């Protein structure tokens, strides 16, 4: 097939010379891979800022009383930590970086459906991100409302709430455009033979995520815009001083922000579903159950938002329904965990860094999930709501889950993306430091949360000192791990061993059939698919009947 200008696919996407040169050839590129890399660089930059803020918060909390900052600074720092980590790291982390890079390749397409919209979404992301950073330096000081922008405080605060709201609003559009692109691409651009049940599970999870991005993000967009109007013109929709209802704001906020939690976790579950069969060298256990559980999570996850508001004073009926649904939404996640563990059974397991991160994901995400059940129980919730218990819970899910999922993805796909190998030893050392540091940092928060330590506290009662101190020490271990991990990946780019090996890990999805690094249009000729992913045909096959006999 030579329908393209000659030479387009002779070189990798990194070397390809298009219309522009240098920096321009990146920031105006409509190649999904270059856009993925742009997202990667910007996301990691924002992540570094977010980690720095987290580190400073932990340092402040090493002892009761003022330590290194005043309360106003602390309040701004936890707000920015939340805004940056959620909107600029975790939400775009997998879909925008690895989804952009690998979704077209894994379904055998040349690019996404709307490459120019894709570039626009990165520009919006950058503008939104910069606006959030700029708001820090404007007169008035950075926003101090928490990432939730609860009214009435967000209407009363004298800080730069407006730029922060506008930043979140713009970032929402970036997310919607990515979602739109992915839904269309999965529907329209699957290569010949790539039926729905031959899609890799990462694609299933991105597809479910994309629907939430398209359907739920507009709600937060309009809600944040209403807060802008509220501050600007005194609309009186949410502000009780003008006859509005602050609880209405909370509902609208969580109608998006709870599904957004699944925007954050689903793609990570997809990554884990890719990595486990590859490093166990066998077919995945329960493909359809994992695929449909993604869809079930996307659907059920849209119906549980008010569990963030159990203390707000809702009717008994609402409390009953939201608590019940919260327990039910745990089931599809549990199904995934059981299927992943079952996939290890009778595998031929390699414990390379991507697999270590995937296994840690299962452990940490499970703790996050179980502690979520504790909060779903109404009477228990009334005690631990808004304490550091919840802070620990969502860090186990969002960082131990999605964060480790992002690290797993980086270690899995890095050689494919850049044609360079990273060093194994530092990667493993970094992993263990991250794993230990993470637990030392966040586990004490469960304990003190149960004992009654509220969240978003600049200062605390002396009896919580040991837990806070341990947690701060954990943050140092964690950051040491992060530094080693990122340095190792960075030095792989600079001086890592070059590789053009197509199938580095022994995977069977399409990206391992593309060149390393992939050329502009990903494949010389678009591949045809006849098998489901992860078949590993050379293995012995045990069918269901035989399995029953085994048990």
């Amino acid at each position, binding site marked *: 097939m030579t329908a393209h200008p000659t030479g387009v696919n002779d070189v990798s996407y990194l070397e390809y010379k298009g219309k522009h040169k240098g920096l321009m050839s990146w920031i105006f590129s409509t190649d999904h891979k270059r856009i993925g890399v742009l997202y990667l660089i910007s996301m990691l930059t924002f992540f570094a800022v977010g980690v720095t803020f987290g580190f400073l918060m932990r340092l402040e909390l090493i002892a009761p009383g003022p330590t290194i900052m005043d309360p106003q600074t602390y309040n701004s720092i936890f707000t920015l930590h939340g805004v940056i980590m959620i909107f600029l790291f975790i939400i775009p982390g997998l879909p925008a970086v690895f989804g952009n890079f690998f979704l077209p390749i894994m379904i055998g397409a040349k690019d996404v459906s709307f490459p120019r919209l894709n570039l626009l979404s990165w520009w919006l992301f950058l503008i939104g991100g910069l606006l959030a950073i700029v708001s820090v330096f404007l007169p008035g000081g950075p926003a101090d409302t928490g990432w939730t922008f609860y009214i009435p405080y967000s209407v009363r605060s004298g800080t730069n709430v407006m730029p922060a709201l506008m930043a979140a609003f713009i970032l929402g559009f970036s997310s919607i455009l990515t979602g739109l692109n992915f839904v269309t691409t999965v529907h329209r651009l699957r290569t010949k033979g790539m039926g729905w049940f031959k899609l890799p599970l990462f694609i299933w999870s991105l597809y479910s995520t994309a629907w939430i991005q398209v359907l739920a993000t507009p709600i937060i967009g309009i809600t944040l815009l209403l807060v802008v109007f509220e501050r600007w013109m005194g609309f009186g929709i949410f502000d*009780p001083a003008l006859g509005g209802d602050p609880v209405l704001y909370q509902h609208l906020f969580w109608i998006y922000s709870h599904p957004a939690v699944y925007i954050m976790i689903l793609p990570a579950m997809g990554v884990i579903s890719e990595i486990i069969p590859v490093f166990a060298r066998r077919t995945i256990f*329960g493909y359809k159950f994992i695929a449909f559980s993604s869809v079930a999570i996307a659907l059920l996850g849209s119906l549980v938002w008010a569990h963030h508001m159990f203390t707000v004073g809702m009717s008994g009926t609402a409390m009953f329904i939201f608590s019940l649904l919260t327990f*039910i939404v745990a089931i599809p996640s549990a199904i995934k965990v059981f299927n992943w563990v079952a996939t290890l059974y009778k595998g031929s397991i390699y414990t390379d860094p991507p697999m270590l991160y995937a296994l840690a994901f299962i452990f940490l995400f499970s703790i996050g999930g179980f502690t979520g059940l504790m909060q779903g129980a109404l009477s*228990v919730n009334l005690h631990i709501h*808004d*304490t550091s218990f919840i802070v620990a819970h969502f860090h186990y899910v969002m960082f131990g889950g999605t964060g480790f999922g992002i690290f797993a993805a980086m270690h899995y796909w890095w050689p494919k993306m850049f044609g360079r190998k990273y060093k194994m030893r530092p990667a493993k050392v970094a992993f263990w430091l991250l794993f230990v540091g993470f637990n030392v940092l966040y586990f004490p928060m469960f304990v003190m949360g149960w004992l009654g330590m509220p969240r978003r506290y600049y200062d605390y009662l002396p009896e919580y000192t040991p837990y806070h101190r341990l947690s701060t020490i954990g943050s140092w271990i964690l950051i040491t791990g992060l530094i080693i991990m990122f340095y190792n990946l960075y030095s792989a780019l600079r001086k890592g061993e070059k590789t053009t090996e197509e199938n580095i890990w022994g995977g069977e999805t399409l990206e391992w059939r593309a060149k390393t690094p992939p050329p502009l249009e990903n494949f010389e000729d678009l591949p045809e698919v006849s098998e489901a992913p992860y078949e590993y045909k050379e293995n012995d096959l045990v069918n269901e009947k035989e399995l029953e006999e085994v048990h």
Partner: protein
Amino acid sequence: MFPSSTYIEKVDFAFLFITAISAALLLLVTVLMIYFVFKYNHKKNKKAVNIHGSVPLEIFWTVVPIILVLGMFYFGWMGYSEASNPPANSMEVKVTGQMWKWTFDYPEGFSTDTLYVPQGVPVKLNLNSADVNHSFYIPAFRIKRDVLPNRENFLWFNAEKTGSFDVACAEYCGLRHSYMYTKVIVLTDSDYESWKKQKIEKSSAGQAI
């Protein structure tokens, strides 16, 4: 159904019930994972066996967790029902949250910044905010409720023991949020009556001046 009688014990029981099941399942998943990783390491197990799945197993690990979480839901709901139904004979105190202090207005007409209550008497707190959202939280009693400017929420408890317990603000409310602490002081009936008498005298004396 509950093995214990007081509200605090019921909350703790629900928490322990969920924690015990969670810990058992976490242990199962983790031990299996580690066992498989060692047992089926590629050095020992050169060739994997493909197993595409098992419908009976899928049904098993869907149905069992559903039953378990319904049990968890039940205990949570029962505790909540109790927390949302104050006895009719409760003593009522009006609580006002504002940046960054609490005010308690007693039916006898005086007000305080620390909550004094008699032991063994149900107390209903009617919560309202003068400015932004707050949340009234007594960790020792396992209760918390948001304090909002445009609606009256309530909270009730029946203190079993005398003593002094922390009251915190649990909903972020700005600069001095972490200092919005006060105490609830539980007195014996007779101590409470003499405290109340003193308060009434003081406040009427204050009015006289």
